[in-house]
């Protein structure tokens, strides 16, 4: 059974259909890349999987570990192991990053019927992961993402991924707004999370990110559908030939 199975998904935003019957299967241990031009529905797909309000699913289904994901609240999905790394992580003034991390982790554990993390264990774990990602301690005391640079915000997303240990990570345009050095640090953090029990779905417009996070399978999206799937060489091919060839195929 695939970890994530999207079957013939149709999604509307207000009156406009964005996804027209999209299908995708992701197995544990795999890294998938979803590429495509702007407006092809990549981000919509990631939002619908995470449960963002404002999208109307008019057809199809999403199964996660065999369960109907669309029936679950966003927090339930997170507790089940779905993690969306945001393209634009929000700033939350007044909520210290450390408080946020602990509240979120314990909420997930509680939803799964697990005990709360003890404070020393939690602190130790956060410090360990933060050090690996080059995140200074004072950043953890500040409000969530408040005053963080683009690179720091993305590293904070990776930090959460490492802490929450989700089984499905969706990275929405992780490279946007990052220079090469910041991208490398974030990508190293992501690569450290590769595991046979975990799948990564990397959504990106450019091939560049895939030099750092190397996918097993590449999908090309156009106009709300997956129009082609292949190995990592497909990404390189796209870099030279562009997306135009798929506009007609869709």
């Amino acid at each position: 059974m695939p970890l994530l199975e999207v079957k013939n998904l149709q999604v509307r935003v207000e009156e406009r259909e964005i996804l027209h019957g999209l299908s995708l299967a992701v197995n544990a241990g795999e890294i998938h890349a979803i590429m495509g031009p702007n407006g092809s529905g990549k981000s919509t797909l990631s939002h619908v999987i995470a449960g963002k309000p404002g999208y109307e699913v008019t057809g199809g289904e999403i199964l996660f570990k065999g369960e109907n994901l669309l029936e679950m609240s966003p927090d339930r999905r997170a507790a089940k192991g779905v993690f969306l790394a945001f393209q634009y992580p929000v700033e939350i003034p007044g909520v210290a990053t450390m408080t946020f991390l602990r509240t979120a982790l314990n909420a997930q554990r509680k939803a799964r019927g697990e005990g709360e993390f003890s404070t020393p264990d939690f602190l130790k774990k956060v410090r360990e992961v933060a050090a690996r990602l080059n995140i200074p301690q004072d950043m953890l005391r500040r409000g969530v993402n408040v005053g963080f640079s683009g690179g720091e915000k993305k590293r904070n997303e990776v930090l959460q991924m490492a802490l929450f240990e989700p089984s499905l990570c969706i990275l929405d345009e992780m490279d946007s707004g990052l220079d090469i050095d910041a991208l490398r640090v974030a990508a190293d953090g992501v690569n450290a999370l590769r595991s046979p029990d975990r799948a990564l779905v990397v959504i990106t417009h450019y091939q560049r990110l895939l030099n750092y996070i190397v996918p097993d399978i590449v999908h090309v999206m156009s106009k709300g559908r997956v129009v082609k799937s292949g190995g990592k060489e497909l990404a390189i091919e796209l870099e030279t030939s562009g997306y135009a060839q798929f506009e007609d195929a869709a």
Partner: protein
Amino acid sequence: MNVVVAKADAGRALSDVFASARDRLPGLGTVVDARKQAFASYQQTGLPHRRIEDWKYTDLRALMREVLPLAAEPDAEALRRAELVLSSLATSDSGRLVLVDGTFTPLLSDLAGLGDGVTVRRLRDVLDNAGNEARADLLHNGAIVDPMLALNAAMATDGVLIAVAAGAAPARPIHIVHVATHLSAAAYTRSYFTIGVGARATLLESFVAADGVRSYQANDAIITGIGDDADLQHVRLMADAPDAVNISTAIVTVGAKARFSTFNMTSGGGVSRYQGYITVAGEGAEVSANGVNLLKGSQHADTTLFMDHAVPNCSSREIFRAVVDDRGHSVFQGRIMVRPKAQKTDAKMMTRALLLSDEAEADNKPELEIFADDVTCGHGATSGALDESLLFYLRARGLPESEAQGLLIQAFVGEAIETIADDGLRELAAAAALRWLEARR
């Protein structure tokens, strides 16, 4: 049908209350004259209504419905119930002065715990002390013309006169606790707090009700004088019973180079108004006046502050936050006056309201009256719902909806609570906010 008649009745009934209460009110001679004068001042408008500009958003003729008779002296049963409430307050580390149903109650107070340099007398004793010079001045309101404050002077039955000696620095907060144990009655209290030159103190005021008490009226006034170079931190936690009416006034005069920080949180009561008149009277004074309203059901809470800069080189900061759920109604009126002499005044005011339901209402009225030309003054106001994108981010990280909302509301009010420098008092305020949030879930 007879709405108009009913409203007029409320004003008339109160004059009956004054007539019948007069014999029970402490003081003779000039004190009685002062009461009569104050009541006459009240009667010029009667209960304030929406056509009186200062009371535009808090129409007491509509909101107070009825005027309740003066509360009886607390009996043994009332004291027992008051004691139960006091034991539940998490403020053991303070010198406590307790007013039960408007009557100072030494039995429940901790006068010994007030610390060196702090003296306390009760208003009733001072007003009744016919042998000495009559202290009718304790019932004067100076230049402030306000019907509810006038009524307070007319009806005041008791209160505490607290003096912190020059240079004193009592270690623990001085805590005035108002406990209501009565049903359908009114308490009028009036207290004084003076802090001498170079002294340093913290004053906590709490308004609470005994278990099972829902409906009563409280009208309190506290007149505070802060000496030069003194430092006063003031926190006021209003947690009255759900159907109570609480109209309270604070009159503060701040001396030269003095620091005054005041914070009010209204999380209880049915209808309340907290009006603060702060006169920045000495050069180099720093004032910080902040507050939070946490409202649900059909609660109405009004915070009205008048910051009067009378002298040069002073600063004032006002941070106010309102969180309004259900059909609640929050009012913030902030008036800043900078008089012609008050050059180099630095005055800022920021108020924000968070509306948690479609029927919630927040009115905000900033007024800047600036008569000096070399000043830095500003104000800002916002109101809106919780940010959906922040909520989704938190939920996508595993926080259930109510928990995500709670975290954002805490952060929202946190900015005002953070202005409380004293750790213990700040934690008390934060705990009160948390209790409100938990009750909301």
